């Protein structure tokens, strides 16, 4: 199934070479969890980023569905 992964701020370092903007489209098996998705592109587990799925924060290790948009960014400050 296809999902979109958006990598913001310092997580941009995990964007594949040649990616347009902040978004990459990925083909993943059905039943893939969010944490597994992050692992496939090399985000280490101890990073503990902020994760949004379709713009909403997630509480548990959600199972993704077709068309989900996952956004990843550091738990940091702005102003």
């Amino acid at each position, binding site marked *: 199934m296809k999902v979109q992964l958006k990598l913001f701020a*310092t997580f941009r370092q995990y964007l594949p070479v040649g990616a347009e903007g902040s978004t990459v489209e990925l083909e993943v098996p059905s039943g893939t969890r969010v944490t597994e998705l992050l692992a496939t592109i090399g985000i280490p587990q101890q990073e503990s980023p*902020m994760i*949004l799925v379709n*713009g909403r924060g997630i509480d548990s290790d959600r199972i993704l569905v077709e068309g989900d948009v996952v956004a990843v*960014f550091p738990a*940091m*400050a*702005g102003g």
Partner: protein
Amino acid sequence: MFGWHGKVLRVDLTQETTRVEEVDPKMAKDFIGGRGWAIKYLHDEMDPKTEPLAPENRLIFATGPLTATPAPTGNRYMVITKSPLTGALACSNAGGIFPTEMKRSGFDLFLFEGRASRPVYLWIHDGEAEIRPATHLWGKNVHEATDILLEETDAKARVACIGPAGENLVKIAAIMNDKHRAAARSGVGAVMGSKNLKAVVVRGTGDVPLAHPAEMKALSKEVRSEVSRDVKKGSSLREYGTAYVPVVTNEIGILPTRNFQTGVFEGTENISGHVLKEKFLRRPKPCFGCPIACGRDTEVDDPDYAGEGEGPEYETIAALGSACGVDNLAAVTKANYLCNELGLDTISAGVTISCAMEMFEKGFLPESDAGRPLRFGDADAVIALIKQAAYREGFGDLVAEGSYRLASHYGHPELAITAKKLEFPGYDPRGAKGMGLLYATSNIGASHMAGDIAYAEVFGVPERIDPLAIEDKPHLVHRFEDAFALIDAAGMCVFLTLRYLFDPHVDLWPTRLTQLMNYATGAGYTPETMLEAGERVYNLERLFLLEAGLTKADDTLPKRMLEEPLPDGPGKGQVVELDRMLPEFYRLRGWDENGVPTDEKLASLGLK
């Protein structure tokens, strides 16, 4: 005294005299410093009904006890006065180097009253104060004035000054320091201009005496190494500045877009931090002694928008970019440079211009008045209006009044996206409800820095909370407001303090901030008494507002936020249920149903 000098410089601009006053140690402790001392002075000396541009209005520059100490990011100052834009309090905060130099010059606070008969500037060097003529500087922009002042005082001095906007009493004028830093909100620049005060120049080589210097240095070092360790792992603020934020707020659906008509902007990628980094960044820039370095030293080559300076920050990108429908970062950066040179608040400038754009597109603002078409996305219109506003030329004379007066002039005050007439910062509250309650209850009007619960609702700092929930928001907004009052009063920067000096849960317990305060001052604070002091400051500010004539009716939001659901994004369909949060907020604060602090509450804080 330690941490504090215990010295206030009172400047009577009418008489052109200065006087050094000792500070009462009990007052010092009870009100912490900075913003806290300032409201005590305003409360004790000033009729809150005073006209903001009258000589009787006090203009206060206030550092905190931690300013110019080894405490990391102890480098901020605040400008406090009665605002000509809002009629409420103004508490504008800035960093850079000026605040540290000011504290080192031997004073905690400068208090300006009266009005000089001709333009002057104040020159302070290691405890000595002089009022000098500034007629030759009047009309000069911030950069020009700063350069001349450094030549005629000391090349190592630091300057806070107004540009043409403040001189022209523009209600959204800022006070700039170190050329590129801004005490921006609430038209503080106009108050300075109304006093014929062009600049304050400081040179200080003194140290701040500390009660427990060894402990202060040890804890400061410990915090610095934690920050450095985190920065090494990857710091978005160091790498991108606050400019990394638009993609985040856009993803949540709260990025101000076309005068807050929606929270999702199709041009977000183009105005984001990675574009800033690739195209315009020369280097990251820290304020004095800061280990983060979120500032941006930048340059734009694009011939249409060429310039150099610092920024833009997130708020500027939201206000002059997405709020105006502009997706050209070179243009936004140029607009930012102009605001800095002319001395304008980028947030109020952008959101006033976006208001004009919506009125133009809806046919409420004739082109003959505007002088040109004003459509969303027209970057050149944004730049033109900034210049006109600073000089009150043509339509700029109305832009200079801020969005509320501008929109009211055309019979549509509901299109001014403000609270207490202060333009909204970069978070649409329909998608972050805590921010909605904050904007409605902050003592300066719609300010994110009065208690930035967006940290938790958007960034998960100290912990993630649901931005769309309303249940716990009255309690949390209360905690954030008091905590931010404390940070402001102490003279610290929020970016480091919130994350490293408060315990990592959303109730905001100031353990390490308290330790730093005690090492500096020896005053024996506990986290409880610190938070109580924050609450004391906040309540005294509230009393000032009520005596100035504001009421519960002013604790509100624009109709758009209360009644027009967000049309797109994850917050689609949402409004701000302010009526379901405000009564609980009043109750938790110990106020009556009209938002008036009860006698019991005031007595508990020593305010009655």
